[in-house]
C-alpha cells in the first residue's frame, strides 16, 4: 500500500528569504486588526456588555419573523434589539442592551427580561423559549477584567516557560507570535462582527495553546540543529528546521482542521463562534510559527553557543587532569 504523503520528502523551501516582506505584512495585519477593533469595535455579547439575550424557536414556523420581532421588542422601550437568526431558520437570538438607568437597577433589569419574554410568548403562540441570559452591568464588567487578566497571564506564563526551557530569544519570539495570533483573531471578530463572548476568550486561550505547539516543535528542531550544525548560518539553519518539520506541521494542522470542520458545520449553533475562532486561529497560529516565531530569532541574535552547555570549572579541571587542554 502506498501511503499518503502530503509534503514530499526533503523539501527545501526558502521560507526565510521572504522574512522581511512577510514580517512587514504581519505587522500591518496586526495594526489593521487593532484599528478594526478600535473603530468598528467588537460585537460584545451579554457576557461583556451586560443586558439580556433571549434564544427561542418558533416551533410551527418555517422561518422566524425577525423584522417583526425587532419591532415588538423595540416597542417595549428598552432600545433597539439585535435580532439574529441562530442555528435553524426558525430559531433566533434577541439581544437587548438595556438603557443605563434600567441596567443599574437590578430589579428593573429583571423586570425588563421578564417583560420581553412574556410579551413574545403572548404574541406568538409557537414561541418556545430555549434559553435566556441576563447579565448585570457589574458582572459583565468583572467578566471583561477577568478575560483580560486570563489572556495576559496565559501569554506571560507561556513565554516564561519557553524562556526557561529554551533561551530568552525564543520566549520573546513565542510571545510575539502569540500576540500576532490574538490580534488577528480579535481583528477577524471585529471585521465580521461575530458575537464576542466568554466562549471566544476560551477559544483564544485554546488558540494560544495550540499555536504554541507548532512554535515549540519548530523551536525544538532549531535547538537540535543548533547543536548539530554549529557552523551553519542561522537563516539557513532556520529554513532547514522549518523544512524538516514541515510534514508534521501540515499534517497536524490538517487533523485538527478535519476534526473541527464537522463541528463548525453540524455542531450546535451556540458553539459556532467559538469553533470558528479556534479554526481561524489554527491557520493564523501555523503561519505565525513559521513567519513570526522563527525569523525573530535571527534578529535577536540566537547563536549556536546558546545551547552548548557552558563548561563548568569541574569539567575544565577534569580535562586538564586528563591533559586535554
Amino acid at each position, binding site marked *: 500500500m502506498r501511503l499518503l504523503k502530503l509534503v514530499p520528502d526533503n523539501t527545501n523551501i526558502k521560507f526565510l528569504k521572504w522574512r522581511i516582506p512577510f514580517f512587514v505584512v504581519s505587522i500591518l495585519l496586526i495594526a489593521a486588526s487593532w484599528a478594526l477593533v478600535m473603530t468598528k469595535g467588537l460585537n460584545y455579547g451579554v457576557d461583556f456588555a451586560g443586558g439580556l439575550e433571549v434564544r427561542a424557536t418558533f416551533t410551527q414556523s418555517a422561518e422566524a419573523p425577525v423584522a417583526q420581532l425587532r419591532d415588538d421588542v423595540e416597542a417595549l422601550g428598552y432600545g433597539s434589539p439585535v435580532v439574529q437568526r441562530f442555528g435553524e431558520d426558525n430559531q433566533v437570538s434577541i439581544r437587548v442592551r438595556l438603557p443605563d438607568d434600567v441596567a443599574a437597577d437590578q430589579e428593573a433589569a429583571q423586570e425588563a427580561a421578564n417583560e420581553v419574554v412574556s410579551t413574545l410568548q403572548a404574541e406568538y403562540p409557537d414561541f418556545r423559549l430555549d434559553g435566556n441570559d441576563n447579565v448585570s452591568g457589574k458582572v459583565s464588567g468583572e467578566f471583561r477584567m477577568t478575560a483580560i487578566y486570563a489572556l495576559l497571564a496565559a501569554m506571560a506564563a507561556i513565554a516564561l516557560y519557553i524562556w526557561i526551557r529554551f533561551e530568552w530569544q525564543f520566549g520573546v519570539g513565542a510571545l510575539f507570535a502569540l500576540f500576532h495570533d490574538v490580534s488577528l483573531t480579535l481583528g477577524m471578530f471585529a471585521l465580521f462582527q461575530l458575537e464576542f463572548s466568554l466562549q471566544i476568550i476560551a477559544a483564544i486561550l485554546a488558540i494560544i495553546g495550540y499555536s*504554541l505547539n507548532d512554535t*515549540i516543535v519548530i523551536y525544538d528542531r532549531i535547538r537540535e540543529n543548533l547543536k548539530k550544525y554549529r557552523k551553519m548560518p542561522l537563516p539557513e539553519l532556520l529554513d532547514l528546521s522549518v523544512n524538516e518539520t514541515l510534514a508534521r506541521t501540515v499534517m497536524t494542522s490538517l487533523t485538527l482542521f478535519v476534526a473541527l470542520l464537522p463541528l463548525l458545520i453540524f455542531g450546535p449553533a451556540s*458553539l459556532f463562534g467559538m469553533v470558528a475562532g479556534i479554526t481561524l486561529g489554527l491557520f493564523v497560529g501555523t503561519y505565525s510559527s513559521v513567519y513570526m516565531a522563527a525569523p525573530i530569532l535571527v534578529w535577536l541574535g540566537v547563536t549556536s553557543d546558546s545551547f552548548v552547555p557552558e563548561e563548568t570549572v569541574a569539567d575544565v579541571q577534569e580535562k586538564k587532569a586528563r591533559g586535554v587542554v
Partner: protein
Amino acid sequence: MLDFPTWRKVWLWSIAIIAMLAALPSLLSATSVRWPDALPQPMVNLGLDLAGGSHILLEADPADVAAQRLENMEENVRSLMRNAEPRIRIGDVSTRGGQLSFILDDPSQMDQAREVMLPSINGTGLVREWDLTMEDGNRMILSPTADGTDTAVNDAMESAIEVIRKRIDELGTREPTIIRQGDTRIVVQVPGLEDPDQLKALLGETAELEFKLVDQNALPSDVAEGRAPPGSEIYPYAETSDFAGQNLAVRRLGGIRGDNLTGAQQSFDPQTNEPVVTIQFDSDGGRRFAKLTTENVGKPFAIILDGQVLSAPNINEPIRGGTAQISGGFSVETANRLAISLRSGALPVELAVVEERTVGPDLGADSIRSGMLAMAIGSLLVIALMIASYGRFGVYATIALVINILMLLGIMAGLGTTLTLPGIAGFVLTIGAAVDANVLINERIREERARGRRVVAAVETGYKEASRAIYDANVTNFIAGVLLFLFGSGPIRGFAVVLIIGLFTSVFTAVTLTRMWVAAWLRKARPSDLNL
C-alpha cells in the same frame, strides 16, 4: 526504549481498562442497557447548558446587613437602658453615619451604662463587635468594628444559603446546587426547571415580615410627601394592595418581627374568600403578638412585607391564639409563594439577581445530538487521514485515539466533573490534537529511516527525539488550560477540564501505549523495512 517487561504491560493495560470501564455507566445511560446497581456508578454530569436548567447568581449588599445591625443595636440599647437597675435615661439617639450615638441624662451613670452594654459590645464570637467612645462627658458613641461587620455579613450569607435551600426544596426541585461565591455572592444552579420565573421570584423575596403600629397623629399631607414625624417612618403600600401608590406612617419602634414563626399556609378568608396567608407564631412570638394586640385594641397596625405595607387592619380584639391572617390582595400563587418564603424563614439580607442563565431542556438535547454527530464525523476523518498517511502506525494511532476518548470520558466520570457545551468543543479539539504526538513520532521515524538508520534504531530515535517536543507542547497547553480553569466560569471551566484531562490521556495513549504496541510488533515480525 522499546523494552517492555510483562509487569509494565499489565500495569499500562490495567490503567487503560479501568479508566475505560469508568466511562461505561455514562455511555450506557444513553441506551436502554442497565448498568448493574451493585457496581460503582461513576457518571459524567451534564452542565446546565446541556441538561437544561437555571443558573442564578445572587448578590447581597453588605450595607444592608450593616444597616440592619445598627437598627437592632438601637433597639437593644434602648431596652437595656430601660431595664437597667436603676433605669438609665437616654436622649438624642441618632444612627447617622453608621454609628449609634446618644446622651445620658445623668452623666454619672456612664460606668453603669457601659457595664450593661458590655456583653452586646463584645459580642458572642471571638471578635469584638462594637467600639465604644465617649464625648463631652455625657455622650456615648457605638461604632461597628470592621471585624464585627464582616462576621455579621458572613453569618447573614451562611443563613441565606440555608433559607434558599429550604425554599428550593419546597419547590420539589431535584439536586439544586447552592454555593457561596466570594464574600457576598451565592450561586444557585437548578437543573431541568420548568418554571425559572417562580424560582427567581422566590429567591428575590426577602420575606421579612413586620407588624408595626400606625402613627395616627401624622399629618396626611406630610405622609403623602414622604415626610415622617419624629419617631415614625414612612412605608409605601404594596402594588397589590387596595391603597397602591399611597404611603403610610408607622411607629418606628415597638413593633414585632415575623421571624419567630412555626408555620405559614396559603388559605382563604372565610368572609371574603380572598386568598390569604395564615401564620403561626412560636410561643415567644405568640406572647409578644398577644401583648401588642392587647395593648392596642381599636388601633390600626400595619403588616409590612419587605418594606411594603400589605394591609393595615384595625385590631378588633386581642389575638391570643398565636395565629394570624395576612391579607394584601394576593392571588393564590403569590399567597402560596409568600407562605413558602415565610416557612423557610426570612432572608437575613436582601439578595439581587446579578446574573441569570437559563437553557431549555430541548435545546440542550439538540446540542448533545449535533455535538456527538460532529464528533463522530471528525473522528472518522482524523482516523482516515492517519491510516492513509502512516499505514500500520496509523492503525496504532487510531486504536490509541479510541482508547483516549473512552479514558477521557471515564476519568471525567470518576472525578465527577461536568460536561458542558464548550466541553464538547474540548473533546473535538482533543481528538484533533491527540494524534499530533503520533504525527510527530511517525514523521521523525520516517526522517530517521531516510537518513539510513535501521528499523529498530529509527523507531527508538523517533520516540526519543519526538518526546521532548511533545512534553514541552503539553506543558504549555497545560498552562493555558489551567489559566482557563482559574479565570473561567461555569461552561468555560467545563472546556478547560476536558482539555486538561485530555492532555494526560493523550500522552498516555498516543505515546506510551503505541510504543508498547510498536515494540511488540517489531519483536514479533522483525521487519527489515517500514512502510512508513
